[in-house]
């Protein structure tokens, strides 16, 4: 079991209120991703759940028990750090065995569990090495191994992939997702990388300035962002946000159109523009277009679309795909 419930959680550092008031429910077995720009409080929130920071107010319930005042060791959670935080003076075996040793388990049992974790993570040949002799990806696996052996109620990941190169990041992303499918244990994962958030999460929590902006499945957030912040944050390239004259578009002050939601034509359309830069990726083509009255727009077309920079183009947003926002930046339901 591993349900986590935050109620009125607050965190104040000195005079700075980092987390003003957060309520959140994480169900057992869920893969939840905290995402947001740097400094939004996502890591702090994770550390509050872990017990590495004390809450300034509110309660943190794990399986119905308030653990807000308990030390990390008593919360039954495992954490994987961005820096891996392996014990440099211990072998890989020693690192993975450490939590079991702390729990006072039998030597034979520890050895069996370490072997099993090493097999799961392809580390069997490295058990006697020190962390300093391993590559980044292997170190990350050791950190995960150390987290899984104690069979925690939930795993906490603090930007675990940001020290890896792009190729390895993609691979480890898959491995963590597979691990979640196998273990079916609750995972709380912090990242600023929205690709990680979109691909791994059952549920995404978008944070901004210590507040939760929206909670939902990746597609809910993509299709129905609750406000301008989420609209601008989720999706790559970003959603195009265009200010509209008052009274038009059903009271919307700003409308948003995702880059793939335009019809592109050389002859006719709603907005006229000029191609500034064209990025031909093969699978897609991205155009950065200067649309006279509206400003710069990013447009994505599937496959190859041969427009060169400097050419004129007409764009028409698909009516059913337009997102509308009011003066406070809240989404208007259509």
């Amino acid at each position, binding site marked *: 079991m591993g349900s986590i419930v935050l109620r009125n959680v607050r965190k104040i550092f000195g005079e700075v209120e980092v987390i003003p008031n957060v309520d959140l429910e994480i169900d057992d077995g869920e893969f939840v991703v905290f995402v947001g720009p740097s400094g939004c409080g996502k890591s702090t929130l994770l550390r509050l759940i*872990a*017990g590495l920071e004390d809450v300034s107010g509110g309660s943190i319930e794990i399986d119905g028990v308030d653990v807000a005042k308990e030390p990390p*060791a008593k919360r039954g959670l495992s*954490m994987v750090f961005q820096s891996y935080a392996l*014990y440099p003076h211990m072998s890989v075996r020693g690192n993975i065995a*450490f939590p079991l040793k702390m729990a006072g388990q039998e030597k034979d049992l520890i050895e069996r569990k370490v072997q099993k974790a090493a097999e799961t993570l392809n580390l069997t040949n490295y058990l006697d090495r020190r962390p300093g002799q391993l590559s980044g990806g292997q170190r990350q696996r050791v950190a995960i191994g150390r987290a899984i052996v104690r069979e925690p109620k939930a795993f906490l990941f603090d930007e675990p992939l940001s020290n890896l190169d792009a190729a390895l990041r993609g691979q480890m992303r898959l491995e963590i997702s597979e691990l979640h499918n196998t273990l079916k244990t609750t995972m709380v994962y912090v990242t600023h990388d929205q690709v990680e958030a979109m691909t791994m999460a059952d549920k995404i929590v978008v944070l901004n300035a210590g507040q939760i902006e929206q909670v939902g499945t990746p597609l809910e957030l993509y299709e129905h962002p609750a406000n301008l912040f989420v609209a601008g944050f989720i999706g790559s390239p970003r959603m195009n946000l265009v200010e509209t004259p008052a009274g038009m578009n059903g009271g919307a002050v700003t409308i948003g159109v995702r880059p793939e939601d335009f019809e592109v034509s050389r002859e006719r359309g709603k907005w006229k523009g000029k191609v500034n830069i064209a990025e031909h990726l093969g699978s897609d083509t991205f155009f950065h277009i200067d649309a006279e009255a509206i400003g710069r727009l990013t447009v994505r077309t599937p496959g190859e679309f041969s427009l060169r920079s400097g050419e004129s183009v007409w764009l028409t947003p698909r009516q059913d795909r337009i997102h509308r926002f009011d003066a406070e930046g809240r989404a208007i339901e259509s």
Partner: protein
Amino acid sequence: MARAVTPQRKLTFTILAWLVALLIFFPILWTLLTSFKTEGDAILFPPAFLPPHWTLENFFEVQSRSDYFKHFFNSVVIAGGSTLLALLVAVPGAWSMAFSPTRRTKDILMWMLSTKMMPAVGVLVPIYLIFKNLGLLDTLSGLTVILALIDLPIVIWMLYTYFKEIPVDILEASRMDGAVLWKEIVYVLLPMAVPGIASTMLLNIILAWNEAFWTLNLTAAKAAPLTAFIASYSSPEGLFWAKLSAASTLAIAPILLLGWFSQKQLVRGLTFGAVK
């Protein structure tokens, strides 16, 4: 701007370095040589550099007259004991300052160090009286405690500097892995800080070994370490240079050897954190 090191420059600096080293080392060398001279040869004028008549007599006489080994034992107990005691207090202290600092931590560190700037004689009378009332005068335990306290600021500072180098993530990881505070310190922090602790220990042993003010003022005979042993050779009857040199040689030899064999550790310890 980096300047090219020409062979001439290198030679000049090498010679200069040797000269400076010789200048600093000369008194020790002179003491060593004098300890092998007879009392008569020791006061020859003009002085003889090498002993005209090599003799070990001074050493035998020093041992029979004032029992070198007893003083040596006392020095070992005081230097070793005070170092261990200081570490016992300093490790948790430095841990707390390095890993859960408050707004006042820097001030406390500076204040602690500032106590080293006060002349020791300023607190001699109160400490003497306290020692007298507690029956600690001329006891090994009393000296061990006072030297531990005297060197505590330096020990805490050095450990603090070392601990600051250890990523806090690793300690937090151990907390997540279920380590309580003492296990976190014993299984994770200390093994990672071994080089730092070793050089801190070494420096503190040397400081305590050489400490003369408190050891001379708070001991008479029973707990007297080697510093008191040397001092006893500058007596009202006049100086016996050869014997005084023999006593000095015996007193500094152990610490000189210790320093010699642990040079690398020591240099690292003294310059650690200097360039960062």
